[in-house]
């Protein structure tokens, strides 16, 4: 699986979250009573935590969790938004930014114990008295290769030594004229990191990577190995001129260390530093932020949309031209136009369409980690991962799916012992799948766990004041509705997995913003299934043009199953509704004109009927006439006309007329 392309998506999204956290903090500082801002920040931190956990970026996830805890206290008004608290939060966002860039660029992660302690102090002591300053970065230039350790690196080293590690400076000098120096450095890191933790690198990893160093660099490491064995390990790497391992003065940890490591020169160094560039002593520098790989081209959606719109216009005029030329000899020349525009159209469309695999790919790892953390046996089944959908939807659907899967693991699946006791297979199964249905994509997440506990949800909803105490037994769909309400959670305790009942609420708002719907199916004790139904908001679709009450209407072709002719005497009435028998199936008939509020149809002779699939059900629409298939460009209808039942938009036809596009899912109740 291509983790690197995914990293970029993660990075881009995480940066967006950090950006919005920064903005929200600023506005929160101005207006601390604004509850929405706190909620937003909390959600951003929560989402970020989930994303980081999914990618396996534990330090980032852990740190975000700490920050989220502080925000949780704030939004519950259990913590005063004092300047100290806000400063600490700004500091936390800064730390997150640094951690993020280090994580993305595979640089060594700076220990953040100190910063975590700052946040923990706030959550453990809800009315903080201690003034907590964000950690200051030292930005010292030096004349020679010196190591300066900042406060928390010193703290980390102290901790390490107390746990039986030794701290060493390892000065490595590469042979002069080493080719691909940075890769050689990488192999040195690889070798050392098998037996040691690299606390700091001078010059910084970034500078090493950009080959902004001569031939030497110094690593500060913690290890259980001896000096000699470290030296031996580094020497096993090719193209090393010399290795010099020296001990850190352990009693000197209280003071800023400014050790001239190059002081010990028992070994001949092939090349000494002539004029090294100023070295940043600490990896935690803004410089890191500038380093972003561009493995993934991000195209502004606006530009993409414009391209697709243009193609749409082109398709329209092609149709116009073809119509003009009909009967003439110009058809041959038009073939070319036809071919080119078709190709252009597909090329443009393919820019927008991506397989949902891109999102699904991260879940096996996530489920594995969560299974381990929760001590449950879980098997993840995935189907339909090649189902394609609009990239804008793919970009947004990841978070909701993370929430739902975590919910299944946390609340759905029972511990193995309970499952065995219930006579279920020991291993729980989570199924994640996608498929097209008509002009929609369905994404479903199901688990064979305990299903919805209707009674518990009812009790909780009453406790939360979401329903009255006299409210009777809940139906599954009512329970589902409650589960997705803001602030509702049946989690017994806060775990890393489930969070605090923010997830499902966030899921619903994302799905709604994509004009999708969520449905819950459940059999208590047996399973729970969440079905997310999203429109395939494609800019260009194939449609069947029909006439009703003199108006031309477009029915998206994905939903159309067949066209039939129906004789009047074939129509029967069942429960006061017109139906016909179609190959042993009862097909309800609707008058399309009537459904849209037009004048009911008056046609003599056989009726043209379009068979359409709606929510898995086939229905027939009686129309006045059938024009044929055409590619149409969806133009959304804005303003007061935007929400008309049964209408998805409009399009300009080849002859310049306007046709309304039918949204069959809302056409009949």
């Amino acid at each position: 699986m291509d983790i690197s392309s995914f990293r970029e998506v993660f990075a881009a999204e995480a940066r967006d979250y950090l950006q919005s956290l920064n903005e929200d903090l600023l506005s929160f500082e101005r207006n601390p009573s604004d509850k929405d801002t706190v909620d937003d920040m909390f959600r951003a931190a929560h989402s970020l935590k989930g994303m980081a956990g999914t990618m396996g970026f534990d330090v980032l996830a852990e740190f975000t969790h700490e920050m989220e805890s502080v925000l949780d206290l704030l939004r519950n008004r259990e913590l005063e938004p004092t300047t100290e608290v806000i400063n600490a939060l700004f500091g936390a966002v800064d730390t997150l930014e640094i951690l993020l860039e280090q994580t993305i660029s595979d640089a060594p992660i700076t220990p953040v114990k100190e910063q975590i302690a700052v946040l923990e102090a706030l959550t453990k002591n809800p009315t903080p008295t201690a003034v907590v300053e964000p950690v200051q970065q030292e930005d010292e230039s030096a004349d020679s290769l010196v190591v300066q350790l900042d406060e928390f690196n010193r703290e980390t080293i102290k901790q390490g030594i107390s746990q039986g590690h030794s701290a060493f400076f390892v000065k490595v000098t590469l042979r002069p004229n080493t080719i691909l120096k940075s890769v050689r450095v990488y192999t040195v890191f690889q070798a050392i990191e098998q037996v040691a933790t690299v606390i700091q690198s001078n010059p910084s990893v970034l500078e090493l990577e950009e080959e902004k160093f001569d031939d030497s660099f110094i690593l500060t490491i913690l290890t259980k190995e001896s000096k000699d064995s470290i030296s031996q390990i580094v020497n096993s790497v090719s193209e090393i001129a010399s290795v010099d391992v020296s001990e850190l003065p352990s009693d000197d940890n209280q003071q800023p260390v400014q050790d001239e490591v190059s002081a010990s020169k028992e070994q001949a160094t092939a090349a000494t530093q002539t004029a090294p560039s100023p070295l940043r002593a600490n990896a935690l520098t803004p410089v890191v932020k500038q380093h972003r790989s561009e493995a993934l081209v991000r195209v502004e959606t606006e530009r993409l949309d414009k391209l697709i719109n243009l193609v749409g216009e082109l398709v329209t005029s092609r149709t116009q031209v073809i119509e003009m030329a009909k009967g003439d000899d110009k058809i041959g020349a038009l073939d070319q136009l036809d071919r080119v525009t078709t190709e252009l159209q597909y090329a443009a469309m393919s820019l927008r369409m991506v397989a949902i695999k891109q999102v699904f790919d991260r879940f096996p790892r996530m489920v594995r980690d969560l299974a381990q953390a929760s001590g449950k046996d879980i098997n993840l089944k995935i189907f339909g991962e090649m189902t394609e959908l609009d990239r804008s939807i793919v970009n947004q659907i990841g978070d909701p799916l993370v929430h739902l899967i975590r919910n299944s693991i946390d609340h759905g699946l029972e511990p193995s012992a309970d499952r065995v006791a219930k006579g279920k297979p020991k291993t729980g199964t989570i199924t994640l799948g996608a498929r097209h249905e008509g002009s929609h994509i369905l994404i479903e997440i199901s688990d064979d766990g305990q299903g919805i506990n209707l009674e518990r949800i009812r009790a909780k909803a009453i406790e939360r004041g979401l329903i009255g105490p006299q409210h009777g037994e809940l139906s599954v769909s009512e329970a589902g509705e409650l589960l997705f309400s803001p602030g509702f959670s049946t989690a017994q305790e806060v775990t890393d997995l489930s969070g605090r009942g923010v997830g499902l609420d966030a899921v619903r708002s994302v799905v709604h913003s994509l004009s999708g719907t969520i449905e819950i199916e459940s059999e208590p004790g047996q399973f729970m299934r969440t079905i997310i139904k999203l429109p395939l908001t494609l800019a260009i679709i194939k449609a069947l043009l029909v006439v009703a009450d003199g108006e031309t209407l477009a029915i998206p072709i994905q939903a159309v199953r067949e066209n039939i002719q129906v004789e009047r005497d074939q129509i029967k009435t069942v429960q006061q509704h017109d139906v016909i028998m179609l190959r042993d199936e009862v097909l309800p008939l609707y008058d399309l004109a009537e459904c849209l509020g037009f004048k009911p149809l008056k046609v003599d002779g056989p009726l043209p009927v379009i068979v359409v699939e709606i929510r898995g059900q086939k229905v027939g629409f009686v129309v006045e006439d059938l024009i044929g298939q055409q590619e149409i460009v969806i133009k959304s209808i804005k303003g007061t006309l935007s929400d008309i039942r049964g209408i998805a938009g409009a399009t300009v036809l080849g002859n310049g007329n306007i046709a309304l596009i039918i949204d069959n899912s809302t056409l009949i109740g």
Partner: protein
Amino acid sequence: MAKTVLITDDTAFMRMTLKNVIEKNGYNVVGEAGDGEEAVALYRELKPDMVTMDITMPKMDGITAIKEIMKIDPGAKIIVCSAMGQKPMVIEALSAGAKDFLVKPFDAERVVESLRKISS
């Protein structure tokens, strides 16, 4: 007994050059592969002590081949051979399990150093 080496490169010339250097220095070249697929098959068959692996090759590239070989034998000792300007791929090869890297054009001493270091 002399250590055995499998050479992988899609050009016969490079294989020849490498074989020459390697055999002169007391190693035994037991096989030559012209692409990644062949390298994986030969690795399975010959179980060489060391492998040199070109990156850009037809059928199966060197990085994929390294991953495949590491699956067969997590202890495999592979030296990745790259041209200048293939830094990201070299890094990828190293993180996939290659133990060292060589940059073309090969310097005989570097080849020998690399073989010596990874075989010890």
